């Protein structure tokens, strides 16, 4: 219940506060969101498997978001930002699907 509450609080805050993203950071936002989604699905899987740990979740969430952003930043500096952000999204996408499949097996048994 509490995790869902946190998500809702965040979404409401985002809509109400009307945060404007600086143009310099705009290309990193989708990457950060995909990394956050990956952490969320991973946390869901860990919860269902009964191995969820606060500390691991928070650390992995923040470090994943920062790392993904950092990789894209380095790519931008090297002039291959678009390719590297595609690479990051592909890797994170694969992880999201793997974790989602695990969640589905645990929930539905199929």
């Amino acid at each position, binding site marked *: 219940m509490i995790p869902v509450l*946190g*998500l809702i609080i965040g979404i*409401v*805050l985002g809509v109400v506060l009307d945060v404007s993203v600086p143009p310099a950071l705009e290309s990193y936002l989708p990457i950060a969101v995909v990394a956050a989604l990956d952490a969320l699905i991973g946390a869901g899987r860990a919860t269902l498997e009964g191995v969820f740990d606060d500390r691991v979740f928070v650390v992995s969430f923040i470090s994943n978001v920062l790392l993904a952003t950092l990789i894209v930043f380095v790519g931008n500096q090297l002039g291959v930002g678009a390719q590297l952000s595609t690479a990051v999204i592909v890797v994170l996408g694969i992880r999201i699907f793997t974790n989602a499949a695990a969640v589905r097996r645990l929930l539905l048994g199929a």
Partner: protein
Amino acid sequence: MLLTLVALALAGLLIAVLVVSGRERAASVSSERSSLVALAQQAREEASALEERVVELDAEVSRLRDAALGAETVGSELATQIGTLGVTAGTEPVQGPGAKVVVSDGETEVSGAEESLSRVLDIDLQQVVNGLWASGAESVAINGQRIGALTAIRSVQEVILVNYTPVVSPYEVLAIGDPRTLPTDFLRSSGGRWLQAVNLSSGIRFTIDSVSSRSVLPAQPVGALRYARPVPADEREDAQ
């Protein structure tokens, strides 16, 4: 537990911000497009208003000219001369029977490189108009654009301009002349032979008909005429 909550709130915040900024971007793109559309609409209205003004001023010019020439013998002779020359120069609207040549683009080819080959080019229309003059046409118009003394038929990129007005396929070239001889003479002229050649080589389609009913060709006002003048002797030092 609190940390988890904060991290989750952060994730929700990120997602919400992404969605909101994406919506804003889409909204700004669509508003930009609609302002461009409005701009184009406004320019078009302005152009048509200016065209109307041209017609008005042209009518005023001929009215003032008639008033200035007056009813005396010399004046009315000049007026008749202006009318006769105006038919050739294209400054007077004309009507009468004649011939109609319709030229249109051929079927567009599938491959990108071949596509432009079956399009009607400015040279094709130039040849048609020259052929019509050579076959005895008195006045010619393309898609309602009268061929006047200063008319140019030329391409700008893919578009053909007649009197600086874009015309599109099918190109209907109306000529006033003898409806019995004009079509056959045109077919034998350089213009007719040119059309047959491009029809065979590029697939451009054309039809030639005689028009026995009256067709009206609009006038094409001529702007200021420019003449070359010799440089006066005292200004010539650099030329030598």
